[in-house]
């Protein structure tokens, strides 16, 4: 009797925990009194990043810009908003909760898995990034005439590839959170550096065919590459150089690489957590 009660409370607790983490994230970062500032906060970086690319391209092409290439740039850049916003949130949560709020240890010793809490904290960011994604694409369509036709977008494919994409983002994010647990001050630089590298090798802004051979091999095992590709394909309707011509094959590879990478990432996270606990780093602030 007492034991079943305990069990109920347990499973109930995990869901609650996830929900409370989502709520906390929304409160700490989304609770802006001024909606304009909040909009600027969500949209500022992704839109300016996209526009910088477009201007650079227009300068290089001498004003005779090709809508196909513009479309490539805008969609890739818009999709990247998810990576920046969601993946980066994981190490950010560890650092802020440990150093700014000094709450990490209390959250850590609650009877949930810390990973659940982290995922909860990153989830509202998907919503914020989705807004940035949509607005960036709209700007592309309205002002740059990129070839997106609302009726011919493959929404189902877009949805599926996005959902799988989120799984891989969470995977990478969880691994970065693990690094943040053991690397202290270095964690933030480390995850920015890695996400910068991913930006270059996943075909976000240029086709992977122009990469040197070994980098291309790397890009072919990263699920983000296929996610960005399928997002482009479902929105623009055409495939990019160096990618399988069949969307089904691409999707299959996305699924497989996502499973692989996410599994490795979660294992990596647990190894890091183990080391952090072993070394007594779970509640030490950076300065120590």
């Amino acid at each position: 009797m007492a034991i079943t009660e305990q069990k109920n409370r347990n499973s109930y607790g995990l869901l609650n925990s996830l929900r409370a983490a989502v709520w906390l994230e929304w409160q700490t970062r989304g609770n802006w009194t001024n909606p304009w500032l909040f909009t600027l906060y969500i949209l500022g970086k992704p839109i300016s990043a996209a526009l910088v690319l477009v201007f650079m391209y227009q300068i290089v092409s001498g004003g005779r810009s090709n809508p196909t290439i513009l479309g490539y740039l805008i969609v890739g850049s818009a999709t990247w908003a998810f990576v920046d916003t969601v993946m980066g949130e994981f190490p950010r949560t560890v650092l802020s909760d440990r150093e700014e709020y000094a709450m990490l240890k209390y959250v850590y010793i609650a009877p949930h898995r810390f990973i659940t809490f982290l995922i909860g904290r990153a989830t509202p960011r998907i919503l914020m990034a989705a807004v940035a994604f949509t607005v960036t694409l709209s700007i592309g369509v309205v002002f740059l005439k990129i070839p997106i036709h609302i009726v011919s977008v493959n929404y189902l494919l877009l949805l599926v590839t996005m959902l799988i994409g989120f799984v891989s983002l969470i995977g990478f994010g969880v691994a970065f959170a693990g690094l943040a647990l053991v690397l202290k001050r270095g964690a933030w630089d480390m995850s920015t550096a890695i996400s910068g590298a991913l930006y270059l090798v996943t075909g976000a802004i240029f086709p992977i065919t122009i990469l040197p051979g070994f980098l291309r091999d790397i890009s072919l095992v990263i699920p983000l590459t296929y996610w960005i590709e399928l997002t482009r394909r479902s929105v623009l309707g055409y495939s990019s150089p160096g990618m399988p011509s069949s969307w089904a094959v691409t999707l299959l590879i996305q699924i497989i690489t996502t499973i692989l990478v996410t599994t490795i990432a979660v294992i990596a996270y647990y190894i890091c957590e183990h080391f952090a606990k072993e070394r007594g780093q779970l509640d030490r602030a950076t300065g120590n």
Partner: protein
Amino acid sequence: MTAAHMHADSPAIQTIDVRRVYKSRSGFTFGGQKAGKSVTALDGVSLTIQKGELFGLLGRNGAGKTTLIKILTTLLAPTSGEAYVDGLDVNKYVIPIRKKIAMVSGGEQSGYGILTVREQLWMFAQFYGVPSQAAHKKIDQLLEAVGLGDQANQKVYALSTGMRQRMNLCRALVSDPEILFLDEPTVGLDVEASRIVRNYVRSWMQEQRGRTVLLTTHYMFEADELCDRVAIINHGQIVAQGETDDLKKGLQEHARFQFELAEWAPAFEEELKQSRGVVSAQSMHQKGKVSVQIALENEEYITSAMQTISSAGGHVLTLRRIEPTLEEVFMRLVGTADDEKSAGEDEEK
């Protein structure tokens, strides 16, 4: 998590020869520690704390108190030895242990500043699976009890240190833990806030039988006031443990008394020293009075000592037994603060 491990009669906390060594390897550490240095924070700690005890762990800064608490709260792995919370091995039953415990540490400004006090407590209740309604009721009760009733809807960042710490105590209690770890909970608090915290801890213990508190402190009076039993830790080793009264008695190899005499009596000191059962006797003049301190092998010799004094012509005004304080016990066992420079001053800065 299996029933076999949850004995109703297992101690609340048990450690067997727990050691913890902090190593800082070069290469992987981005912090400021020197490479290769290793610190033995716990050096074979064995303690047993029964359910229902308010147990004090006393020691100076760097003695290893926080390290022990971290091990018991699943924040840190022991280097060797065994540690159990409610009979559950801290290395194996992490989640089941976490359901039973809560912790508060002092000397820090913790809290999600942007949340209100109520929101922060509610969130923790959620982490422990307490249904919302029950949680809010509990939160009201707790806040009222520690004098934060008016602050429920105030943002955490606007609280004073003392208020934050009281909120922290509520945060720990909102999940109704069986075992509560308090790591120097009143450090840095003003007298009033400390008093509220101490009083509430005491009444929380009394509210329900079987609740257990492990309190660390370097304030001896706090331990003396709150704890049934204490252990004194120094350089990672338990140097004494037992009931506070026993420790004080144990410190006294001899029963000590102090007399005041109306006036000087010839040669009473010498005679006292000759008298049976007297270990030492010292007298001194103080503002026209004579005060005498004697140590006896055993308190029963006090009658014969009194007789010796009166037969030497002394007239006893007052007689008082000298009771040692916990502070004295501590000083005797651990030494003075000067020996302490090497032990971990780098922490908590």
